[in-house]
């Protein structure tokens, strides 16, 4: 048996991220995946109902309007915004663009992403409004 008694810092396996603001924001964007997964399955269900016919589709639409689903949707919307902003924030680290001897400023890359997000979102909203 070893005589060593190494110091092991006590750290909770389930709530360690509450000890630091940076860990909290990390967990916040990781948890967004729960809502992404739920939304994907809601969309799959919607596609099946769309295929089935108008009545099934109407049932899906009334499910969307259920107060509990509306509350969950609002929470999901907040998490999607957290996902988008945290993802864009990490882009300059993952994508380094070199022009000549210099690298393009990270702020420019992130800014470009937000401009693209704005144009795309506007396009979808206009498409949904015109249809």
């Amino acid at each position, binding site marked *: 048996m070893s005589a060593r008694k190494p110091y092991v810092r006590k750290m*909770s*396996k*389930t709530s360690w*991220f509450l000890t630091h603001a940076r860990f909290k924001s990390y*967990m916040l964007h*990781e*948890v*967004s*995946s*729960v809502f*992404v*997964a739920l*939304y*994907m*399955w*809601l*969309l*799959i269900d*919607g*596609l*099946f109902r*769309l*295929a089935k*016919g*108008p009545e099934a*589709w*109407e049932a899906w*639409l009334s499910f*969307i*309007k259920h107060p509990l*689903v*509306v509350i969950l*949707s*609002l929470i*999901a*919307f907040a998490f*999607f*915004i957290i*996902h*988008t902003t945290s*993802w*864009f924030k990490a882009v300059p680290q*993952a994508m380094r663009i070199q022009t000549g001897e210099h690298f393009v400023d990270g702020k420019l890359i992130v800014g470009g992403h937000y401009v*693209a*997000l704005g144009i*795309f*979102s506007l396009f*979808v*909203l206009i*498409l*949904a*409004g015109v*249809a």
Partner: protein
Amino acid sequence: MARSAKAVPWFLFAAGGTITAFVLPVMLFVTNIAPPLGLFGEALSWETMYGFVSNWLVKLVLFGIIGFGLWHAAHRLRVCAHDFGIRADTAVAYVVYGLAGIGTLATIWALLSI
């Protein structure tokens, strides 16, 4: 050189993360937030939606969004499980990637029946 299978989930995670970052906020607004507010009523009627999704390009785009979204979420959920103290990584991996696989097949099935 050592070979690793990590490139596959990482590609799906990164591609899915980018696609969802651009698409999901406005998509969720149109499908889930606007209807209770009474917006886009015409656009979400069965006739309009069925006609819209019948287009092959729309089907391909929807498959891309849902497929990549599922695999992105699966990879993150696997990491999440570890972060919340669940250390059975192999079992977790089978569950999350398995569900993403089933979801991908279900998406293809649903889209082909429209």
